[in-house]
C-alpha cells in the first residue's frame, strides 16, 4: 500500500494533524478576497493532479481515523444513519457508484469483482473482505447505504425526487456543521435550508434546486462550502452541542493558530441510475490557521475574507464570538500585497 494513514483522534485529546502533503492539497475555498453565497457549481471530477478534485471520492491520510470516529458516533447515536424504506434502491446505487469508483481510482487499496449479482469486495485499509449479492440486503450486515458509508469519508444525503423538489429521505450524517439528520429527514430542499440567512432572498436556492433537478446520469458536479470549527472535531452536531459549543470559549490570542480550524466541505452531486435519486456526499476537510498561513496567499486572503464578511454569515457559521481574535491573528500574515486568482497556493 502506497498511502500512509494517520493514527489520530477527532475528539478527547484531538491528535488530528495534517502532513505537509495534506496542507498542499487542502481544498482552500476562496478564489478571491471576498465571500458571499452564490451558486458556485462546477463539473466533477476534474482538477490538477494530487488535488482532492481529481477523483470521484477522494481518499487521504485521514481515512482510517475518520472511519473509527464515525463508528464511535454511531454507537452513541444510531439515528445519525437513517433510510426511509423506499430509499433502499438508492442505497444500492450509491454502493455501486462508490465501490466501482474506488476500485478504479485506488486499485492498490480497493478491489471489486463482479459476476452478475455476485460481488466480491476488498477494502485493504480497513481490513474488510466480503462476498455478497447485489440488490439482496440479506447478504450484508446492514443496509447498503450504511454498509458503504461506514467505509467512505464524508457525510451522505440521498435525495428522493418528487413534485419538482428534492426530499432528504436517507442519510449518513456524523460530521456535520451543526445540523441534524434526525430533524431534517423527510424535509424538502427549501425546508432544510430555512435556517440559512440571505441566500433564499438572493434567489440562490431557487436556482440551485433547478440545477439539481436537471442533473443527469453521467454528469457529476461539485461545490465548496465552508465554516469555522474550534478543535479538529468532525461531530459538530446539534445533538452534541453541549460537548463542543463551550470549547469556543477556550480560544485565546495565544492558542488560536492551533485551535481554530477552517472547515471545508467538498460537496458533490450524482444522479443515481436505478432509483433516479440524487446522491449528495459532503466531504469535510479541516485545517488550522497556522497551517493555512504556511501558504502566504492563503494567509493574506483568509484574513481579508474573515475581516470583511457579512455579520449575518459570521453569526450563522458560529464564529462571530471569536472573529476579533481570529482576524487579529491572521493580520500578521497580510502585508497588503495583491493575491493571484484561483484557489491554489502559489508555492
Amino acid at each position, binding site marked *: 500500500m502506497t498511502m500512509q494513514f494517520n493514527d489520530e483522534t477527532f475528539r478527547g485529546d484531538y491528535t488530528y494533524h495534517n502532513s505537509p502533503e495534506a496542507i498542499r492539497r487542502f481544498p482552500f475555498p476562496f478564489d478571491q478576497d471576498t465571500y458571499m453565497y452564490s451558486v458556485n457549481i462546477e463539473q466533477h471530477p476534474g482538477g490538477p493532479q494530487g488535488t482532492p478534485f481529481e477523483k470521484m471520492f477522494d481518499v487521504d491520510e485521514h481515512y482510517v481515523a475518520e472511519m473509527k470516529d464515525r463508528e464511535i458516533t454511531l454507537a452513541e447515536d444510531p439515528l445519525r444513519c437513517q433510510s426511509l424504506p423506499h430509499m433502499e434502491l438508492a442505497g444500492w446505487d450509491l454502493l455501486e457508484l462508490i465501490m466501482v469508483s474506488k476500485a478504479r481510482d485506488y486499485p492498490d487499496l480497493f478491489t471489486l469483482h463482479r459476476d452478475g449479482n455476485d460481488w466480491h469486495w476488498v477494502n485493504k485499509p480497513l481490513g474488510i473482505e466480503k462476498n455478497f449479492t447485489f440488490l439482496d440486503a440479506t447478504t450484508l450486515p446492514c443496509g447498503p447505504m450504511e454498509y458503504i458509508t461506514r467505509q467512505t469519508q464524508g457525510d451522505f444525503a440521498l435525495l428522493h425526487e418528487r413534485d419538482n423538489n428534492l426530499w432528504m429521505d436517507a442519510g449518513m450524517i456524523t460530521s456535520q456543521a451543526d445540523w441534524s439528520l434526525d430533524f431534517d429527514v423527510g424535509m424538502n430542499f427549501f425546508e432544510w435550508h430555512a435556517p440559512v440567512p440571505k441566500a433564499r432572498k438572493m434567489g440562490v436556492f431557487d436556482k440551485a434546486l433547478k440545477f439539481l433537478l436537471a442533473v*443527469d*446520469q453521467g454528469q457529476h458536479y461539485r461545490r465548496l462550502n465552508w465554516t469555522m470549527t474550534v478543535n479538529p472535531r468532525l461531530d459538530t452536531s446539534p445533538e452534541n452541542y453541549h460537548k463542543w459549543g463551550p470549547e469556543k470559549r477556550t480560544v485565546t490570542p495565544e492558542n488560536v493558530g492551533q485551535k481554530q480550524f477552517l472547515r471545508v466541505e467538498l460537496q458533490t452531486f450524482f444522479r443515481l*441510475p436505478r432509483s433516479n435519486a440524487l446522491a449528495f456526499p459532503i466531504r469535510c476537510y479541516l485545517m488550522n490557521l497556522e497551517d493555512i498561513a504556511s501558504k502566504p496567499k492563503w494567509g493574506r486572503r483568509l484574513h481579508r475574507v474573515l475581516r470583511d464578511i457579512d455579520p449575518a454569515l459570521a453569526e450563522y457559521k458560529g464564529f462571530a464570538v471569536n472573529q476579533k481574535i481570529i482576524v487579529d491573528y491572521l493580520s500578521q500574515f497580510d502585508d497588503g500585497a495583491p493575491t493571484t486568482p484561483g484557489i491554489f497556493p502559489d508555492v
Partner: protein
Amino acid sequence: MKKLCLKVAAVEQLSPLVKRFRFEDPTGASLPVFSGGAHLTVEMPEGDMIRRNSYSLISDPYDGSGYEIAVRREDKGRGGSLYMHTKVAEGDEITVSVPSNLFQLDLRARKHVLIGGGIGITPFLSQLRQLDMEQKPYELHYAARSREEAAGIRLLPQAAHIHVHISEEGARMDLGAILDGQPLGTHVYTCGPDGLISAVADQTARLGWPKTSVHSEAFTAPPPGEPFDVVVKSSGKTVHVKADQSLLEALEAAKVEIDYSCRGGACGRCHTKVTACDGRILHNDHWLSDDERAAQQDIMPCMSRFKGTRLELDL
C-alpha cells in the same frame, strides 16, 4: 449532455405505424442502467442540422446490454419520426443521450396503477419491469382504438394484472371502475393523449386522491407551426425558424449555445429569458407557470413558438 455512439442492432415493425429499435454498444460494452419511465434523446442528422427527439425506453431498465425504443410514425409532425421510420436501418450508427427520467415511479406507493393510451404505453414497459423486480403490487391498463393499432400488446406480458381495453371491440376503459376502491396510498400514472390525462385528474380529484399521488407524462414532440424570426441578444444575429423546426433546433443550427435535456417542455433545462417581445409567445411547454406565460418574459425554446414582429432572447 453526455452522449453515447451506438449501433442499431435490430428494427422491427410492431404495427402498421409503430417500429421498435434496439441499440447496442458497438464494442459490446455494457450501457448505463436506468430507472423505469426514463427516456433517451436520439440525434437525427438531416442536411446541415441535427434533429433530436426524445423517446421512452421500453427495455429492461437493469439490463445494460442494449436500449430499446418504440416510435410511432407521425405523418404530420416535423419529420423526426419519419426519419426513424424511413432512414434508420440495422447496422447504422446512431448517437443518443444517456437515459434521463422525468416520469419516475414513486416507490413510496402501496400500489401502482399505470394507465397508458395509444403510444403512451411506452414508459410503462420499463416501469413494469422495475415493479416486477422490486416486487411491488401494480396493475396496468392499456387503451387503444383497435387491436391493429395496439402495438404495445406484443410487448406486454400476459398476466392477470395487465388489462387491455380495445374500444373498437366495445371494451372501452372505465376510469371510474379502475380508480374507485383502490387501497389508500395508491399512486396512479398516466401517459397518452391530453384528454386521457385530464380525465384521470378529474376522476382522482372526485375520489379525493391527494394530487401528489397522481402523475402524468404528456409525451409530445414539438409541434410544427408558422415560420418566425428571433434575435439573439449577445450577437444581434437574427435566426430564422422554419415551419418544421423547433426554436431550439433553429438556434442549434445557428450555433447558438443553449442547454437542453428532454426537448419536450418538461425538464426546464432550455429555459431562456426574453429581453424584447412585440407579439405573442405560443407556449407549448409544461414547465412555465401561468403567470410566467402571461408575462412573456420567459420561453422554453424546445417547444414554444412565436407570432409577431420582434422576439429577442437573452442568449
